[in-house]
């Protein structure tokens, strides 16, 4: 078993949205960034992984076990970091350890208080008086105190300033390196995904449109710009997406199949690929997957 998380044909149908036969494979020791616009289906996938909503089709295996049949066993080894702190405002650091210790067999008070100390969280203050950044840091301390082997992080840096975001990402990176853990990191902040992810999965309108090693993005894709008077052929081999504007056409191309010419080519990053796949029109010569 080389994958810590395997999702096959995962489908969830709502009245106005369908998560459509999603396949996702996260190898042990890797970080996958799940990226997509708001409403693309990122949180739906995470809820299905946690068995918080009923799936309509498909299969999810975590640590090689079915996520529904072995739910409690799996969740003992899972660290879940969400976009807010779900503890009552009147609780404090010590009360949270009192609550969490009997819930998780692997809860480690020593680790918990070492993170509290490292993240400079005040033990005497109640959570209600914490800033959003402090609450996000508290979430890290809670999530990592159970020695999780897989971290499921749903928008853990949303609404935070760049300094705290960087600090949080660094802590997660350190943890993964030390513990050989894996992360499924959902976010719409592409720069965060760039900093942390080995693999990037782009989700759009409930469908996975690309899964790629981050380092391959620059090698595989490029952007080409056609000025208004230059002919552009959307059916040309290698054209994945294109965006027309008043005076130009910009296209995302796959380097290994596109026949290069005299045009200017620009390197692309995750954000560019996301923008093209969400806002662009599909080229007729190639598909992303």
């Amino acid at each position, binding site marked *: 078993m080389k994958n810590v998380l395997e999702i096959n044909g995962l489908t969830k149908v709502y009245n106005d949205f369908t998560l459509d036969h999603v396949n996702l494979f996260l190898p042990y020791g890797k970080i996958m960034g799940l990226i997509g616009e708001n409403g693309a289906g990122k949180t739906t996938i995470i*809820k299905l992984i946690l068995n918080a909503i009923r799936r309509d089709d498909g299969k999810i295996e975590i640590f090689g076990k079915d996520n529904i049949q072995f739910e409690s066993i799996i969740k003992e080894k899972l660290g879940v970091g*969400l976009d807010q702190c779900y*503890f009552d405002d*009147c609780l404090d650091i010590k009360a949270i350890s009192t*609550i969490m210790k009997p*819930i*998780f067999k692997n809860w480690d008070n020593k680790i918990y208080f070492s993170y509290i100390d490292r993240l400079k969280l005040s033990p005497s203050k109640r959570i209600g008086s914490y800033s959003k950044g402090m609450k996000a840091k508290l979430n890290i301390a809670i999530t990592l105190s159970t020695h999780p082997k897989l971290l499921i992080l749903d928008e853990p840096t949303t609404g935070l300033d760049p300094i705290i975001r960087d600090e949080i990402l660094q802590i997660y990176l350190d943890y993964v390196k030390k513990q050989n853990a894996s992360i499924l990191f959902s976010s719409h902040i592409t720069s965060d995904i760039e900093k942390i992810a080995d693999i990037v999965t782009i989700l759009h309108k409930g469908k996975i449109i690309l899964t790629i090693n981050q380092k391959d993005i620059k090698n595989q894709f490029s952007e080409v710009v056609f000025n208004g008077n230059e002919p552009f052929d959307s059916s040309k081999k290698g054209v994945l997406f294109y965006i027309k504007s008043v005076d130009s056409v910009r296209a995302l191309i796959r380097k290994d199949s596109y026949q290069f010419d005299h045009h200017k080519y620009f390197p692309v990053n995750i954000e560019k690929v996301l923008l093209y796949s969400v806002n662009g029109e599909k080229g007729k010569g190639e598909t992303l997957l």
Partner: protein
Amino acid sequence: MSGLIKKDLIVMKRKFKPIQLLIILVVILPLSQNPQYALIIISLMVPFLLSILVSSSFGYDQISKWEEYAVALPLPPKKIVASKYILCLISLIISLFIVVLAFFLLRLFEVTNSGNLAMAIVVSTLFTIIYHSLMIPVIYKFGIETSHTVLYAFILIPTIISTLFGMFKMKIDVSIFDHSYFIIFVFFILFLLLFLSYLISVKIYKKNRLK
């Protein structure tokens, strides 16, 4: 599961100071002002206030969106639901402790006709169990806001019953509380009701969660 119970107890302890004060008043005032009726008042009012405390824990869970986080914890739905029922039993134990304490205080101050301890225990248990057996499934099904209707009904029910007793000149034969088999029978029925309520709540919780 004990983590969830601890969470609710800590939150209750930190948030409900006005009601705690009210509970102390409910015990002290009848003891000093109307010692003859003190036991029956305490046996009704203390479980009532403690039951509100337990129900409020759902409200605080809702405010902190705890249920969204609970799905990430290694706890099956039946344990999450059971924690609320255990909280109900803890509130019952506290109620009964206060009732027994009040009874011995009345004895200590040689208040005659202070009432029947067995009856007070049955009344407290009856109130707590019926209240939570109805309230917890209602909260899981319709939410904490709707459950307030049930609370109003609970305030009205004793008034309606006492009015009916007055209208038809009915009397309760308190000697029935001297028979242990009667008390055991009542307790058996009540705990059966609580268990059935628990099974219904688990079913509702699972259905609501896995939409």
